[in-house]
């Protein structure tokens, strides 16, 4: 079996991370932003799995971390969407520009 | 347990206060707590007297030592020597008097008395601590209530004053903490790092470390006792505070600083020697300049607050002079000023309750209407200007005698200038007294001369403080024996 070099996978995760980051900075819709964050989390997951496979093939720490992150991300999505729904009820909008009540 | 009771009693009183209902219950409980405490302190004084080896005022009695926080080797270590005993006695006297004069506080009375008791608890804990961390802990306990007492029950620009006082005192605490930490890490004791005062005193901190950390600790404590130029919280804080808080603030709380300065000077003798010139300079400025600034004040509370700056200068002067007599004088001045200024604030508070003004220009001839309060005012004033027979003279003359033993010419000049304050004090006290107490009647409003004189609680409060002043002024030998053997 032809081994895929680690660098390819790292390239993929880096690309995914910056795509997520681009989305986070440019979108105004909170749900889109949440999706962008999910992208970034997944890029991290890929990193964990890849490093685990290539550097410490006899251990499972990276995989565990990935599972943790997936679980936390799910919980986070649930909380975030609950907040967004409340926000929408109050503001009739989920535009991030309009959620500035918490500033100084 | 003998000494811990000094903390436990107020603590129990404070907790019980939280479960009280109604003004009546609250003040009866607060007063009985303070009275029991006073009686206990008097009894403790007798026991102390009996147990102390003759003539040894430095002996530490009633020691208790428990390990409190192992990783940092912090102990709950308490005990008293003669000086601490004198300060505790002062605290107990002022606490009873302060609670008596706030008999008629209606607003949030439970919380008010709770905070007063908490403040006194902090003071007791501070004076009996032999562990620097415990000392610091109780110092902080005594700061917070002041902020609330002024901010909630005060008058005038109370929020501003409360904030100013709290910030300056907190700044002082921060400096104190730096100094104490420096001592903690530099004292070469056998048991490793320790906050224990006695062990540190035995071990002698290296001179370099002393010189580095002494200013922090001294200035930090100095802020509490109105060290120039950090005294500006005193006038604003006192004038905005309610009567009892003023009494506690000037009578007890400012003494925490003086006591702390004294302990630091004794703990770091080389540094105290090295910095004594600066201490004396600042103290002399505080004495003279405070007195001059007092002359121009028009509000009675401001007059007493500025005169406190001047009088507390004597405490620092005595400490800075470093002779045994001068330090004894500093302690005497702390006790004397505590009693006298509490009495003065009590008298001012009583006048204010009736006339609703503290402006000297608006008052006059009150001796005719309220002979008792006026007499109290006169006695406090005479004590302030150092009349023999009252405590102020004993303290001041001891500071002068001790200060003069320093043969250095500059110290002599400082002493002469400090002596000059007896004239300046006479000027501002007599100006205020001549206008408010004597002269044609004024300031009584529509009630004319039917304003009531002092009530039983006010008479009792003044009586307690005046007794203290007279006992100290007429028989100074016992208190000198107490503090210096």
């Amino acid at each position, binding site marked *: 079996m032809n081994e895929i070099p680690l660098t390819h996978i790292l390239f993929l995760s880096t690309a995914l991370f910056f795509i997520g980051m681009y989305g986070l900075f440019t979108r105004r819709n909170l749900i889109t932003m949440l999706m962008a964050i999910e992208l970034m989390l997944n890029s991290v997951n890929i990193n964990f799995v890849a490093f685990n496979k290539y550097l410490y093939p006899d251990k499972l720490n990276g995989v565990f971390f990935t599972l943790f992150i997936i679980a936390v991300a799910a919980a986070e999505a649930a909380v975030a969407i609950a907040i967004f729904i409340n926000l929408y009820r109050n503001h009739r909008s989920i535009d991030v520009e309009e959620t*500035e009540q918490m500033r*100084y | 347990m003998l000494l811990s009771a000094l903390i436990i009693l107020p603590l129990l009183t404070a907790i019980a206060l939280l479960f009280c209902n109604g003004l009546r219950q609250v003040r009866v409980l607060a007063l009985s707590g303070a009275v029991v405490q006073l009686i206990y302190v008097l009894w403790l004084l007798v026991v102390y007297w009996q147990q102390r080896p003759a003539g040894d005022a430095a002996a530490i009695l009633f020691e208790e030592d428990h390990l409190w926080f192992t990783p940092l080797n912090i102990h709950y270590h308490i005990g008293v020597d003669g000086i601490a005993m004198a300060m505790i006695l002062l605290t107990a006297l002022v606490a009873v008097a302060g609670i008596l004069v706030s008999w008629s506080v209606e607003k949030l009375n439970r919380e008010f008395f709770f905070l007063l008791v908490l403040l006194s608890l902090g003071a007791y804990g501070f004076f009996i601590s032999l562990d620097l961390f415990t000392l610091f802990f109780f110092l902080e306990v005594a700061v917070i209530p002041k902020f609330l007492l002024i901010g909630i029950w005060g008058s005038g620009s109370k929020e501003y004053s409360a904030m100013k006082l709290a910030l300056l005192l907190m700044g002082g605490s921060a400096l104190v903490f730096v100094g104490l930490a420096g001592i903690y890490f530099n004292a070469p004791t056998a048991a490793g790092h320790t906050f224990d005062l006695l062990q540190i005193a035995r071990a002698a901190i290296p001179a370099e470390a002393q010189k580095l950390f002494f200013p922090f600790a001294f200035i930090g404590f100095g802020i509490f006792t109105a060290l120039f130029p950090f005294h500006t919280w005193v006038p604003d804080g006192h004038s905005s505070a309610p009567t009892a808080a003023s009494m506690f603030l000037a009578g007890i709380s400012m003494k925490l600083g003086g006591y702390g300065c004294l302990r630091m000077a004794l703990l770091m003798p080389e540094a105290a020697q090295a910095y004594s010139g600066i201490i004396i300079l600042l103290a002399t400025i505080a004495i003279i300049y405070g007195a001059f600034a007092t002359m121009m004040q028009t509000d009675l509370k401001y007059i007493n607050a500025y005169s406190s700056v001047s009088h507390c200068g004597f405490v620092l002067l005595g400490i800075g002079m470093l002779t045994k007599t001068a330090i004894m004088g500093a302690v005497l001045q702390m006790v004397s000023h505590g009693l006298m200024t509490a009495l003065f604030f009590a008298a001012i508070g009583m006048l204010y309750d009736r006339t609703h003004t503290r402006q000297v220009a608006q008052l006059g001839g009150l001796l005719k209407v309220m002979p008792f309060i006026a007499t109290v005012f006169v006695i406090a004033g005479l004590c302030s200007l150092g009349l023999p*027979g009252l405590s102020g003279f004993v303290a001041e003359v001891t500071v002068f005698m001790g200060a003069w033993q320093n043969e250095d010419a500059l110290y002599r000049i400082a002493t002469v200038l400090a002596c000059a304050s007896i004239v300046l004090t006479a000027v501002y006290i007599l100006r205020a007294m001549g206008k408010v107490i004597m002269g044609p009647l004024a300031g009584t409003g529509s009630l004319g001369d039917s304003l009531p004189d002092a009530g039983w609680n006010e008479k009792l409060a003044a009586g307690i403080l005046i007794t203290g002043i007279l006992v100290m002024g007429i028989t100074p030998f016992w208190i000198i024996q107490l503090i210096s053997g």
Partner: protein
Amino acid sequence: MQRPFTIDDIAMNYSSYIALIPLLPLAAFVMLGLLGKQLSRSAGILATLIMLVSTVLACYTAYNYFFVTGKVNGVYPPVAAFHYNWLPFSPGLSIDMGVLLDPASVMMLVVVNFVSLMVHVFSLAYMKGENRFATYYAFLALFTFSMLGLVLSGNLLQMYIFWELVGVSSFLLIGFYYDRPAAVAAAKKAFIVTRFADLGFLIGILILAFYGGTLDFNTLIYQLTATNSSPLTQSPQAGFPGISLLTWALMLVFMGGAGKSAMFPLHIWLPDAMEGPTPVSALIHAATMVVAGVYLVARLYPIYLLDVAVLQIITWVGAISAFLAAIIACTQTDIKRVLAYSTISQIGYMLFALGLAGYGHTTTGYSASLFHLFTHAFFKSLLFLGAGAVIHFVHTNEMLEMGGLRKWMPVTHLTFLIACMAIAGIPPFAGFFSKEEILLAAWENNRYVFLLALITSGITAFYMFRLYFSIFWSRTRSYPHQHGEGSWTMKVPLVLLGTAAVLVGFIPFADFVALDNQKEITIPLSFSIAPVTIAIAGIALAYLLYYKYNPGPQKLALALGGLYKMVKRKFYFDELYLFITKRIIFDGIAKPAAWIDKHLVDGFMNGAGRATARFAESIKAWQSGRVQSYALYFFGGIIALAALIVYWWT
């Protein structure tokens, strides 16, 4: 000049009851102070009875001291009857509450007690009906206690303690009519001026105590006079530019005395102090407190002898005060103020006599001075009580509104005349003898002072008889409320003091109170001619101008013009002091101090607070509330950290 130490076995005779002499008035003060309201009228009687007991004890002490114990080795020894360690400062240095008997203190003991008793009795009628009758007696008792304590002090700081107590009781009594602004102002002035002088006293004590190593009078005198190695006496370097510490110390102590004795230029408080009740003036501002300065110098006299410069200062301060005060007295119309200035003048006599005794050919000035103090106490308190009786009768202090009073007040008239003769120095009244001794001392030691003193005694006779004629002769007026001269309680003290003013001059005073090596004082008859002549001339002038009401005095005043005005305004001393206090101290120092405190020191604190707030204000926009900009900071931070870590690791 070594004095023997106290002799303990003699001391045993005294200890118990002497303490009672000052303590009895103290007990009276406490009793009247606490129970005054309940006692009301009987308060005065109680205080008077206590004073009577105290006076008897004082006389007994004097008898015991002078006649039972008597002389040891030709002098009356100082006896420290007992002392109690009151406030220990350091080994050797402590305030001891004690009693020191020596001829001067025993003499003062009798004088103070006697005059105080007379004033107590007199006040029974004078202060009758006063609201605060009991308070008045309480204050009187407090004063008497303090004055007796001062007199008996055996310790420098003990003396200072009572010195201050005397000052405060004087303050309370001057301000007794507390609702009169003038009385309040006078009380404040008296207290503050004397306090200023006491500052000097205190610093002087500090110097003396430090170098003498003790505060006890006898030991101190012994230490400083016997051991010449004391740094105090030797090195002027130890002092301030060119003046030795001893000179400083003695000058400063004298400053305290000059303040209490109202000497030039600290005399300004005494005339104003006349706002107090008149019997109080008789006690405090004539016979007792104001001579404390003389007494103080006499007490420390062996030390003063070490320093001629200070004695010269004392001499001239005394002489100038005597002269200036006498001149001012000629122009005053308030009868009490005339008497006040005459008091200043007479104390000036005592002081220059004391000063002259130290550096001239003879030392008779010392006992002459104290003799004058003794006689002066009687005739001056008599004058004040007489003035009190007059004021009680006419209800005014103004001499111009009186006249012809001899018809209504025969007893007062007669006793007042005796006192005037005494103060003018007419033989055989008491003042003649003492003044003659002083003049003799001046003649023998310093002719300039003698000349000044001689002129002053002429002026004294003039203004005293100006007062006498204006009150009792001049034009007769009718007085709206003609009650009698006063009850017997007012007359008895006058008569007793009058008798004393006639008789006490015959006491061979120098036998009792004198310096150890003083020679007998013999006044040649021929010497008396000049003073008596000049006194009679003064009286004659007063007779011409004031015996019958005539426009003469006014014409004279007009003719003198500016000069008269200047004297009448007391050489503008009050204005000068007012300028110093108001313009220099209040406006020049206190106001700037208060301003600096409010604006610079506190301004700095407030500024620090404001600077913090402004800084926070300026960076608060960073917290924009925009999630995306936070994310940007966040990632920027991570990148920066990553860059740093990579940089450090490679």
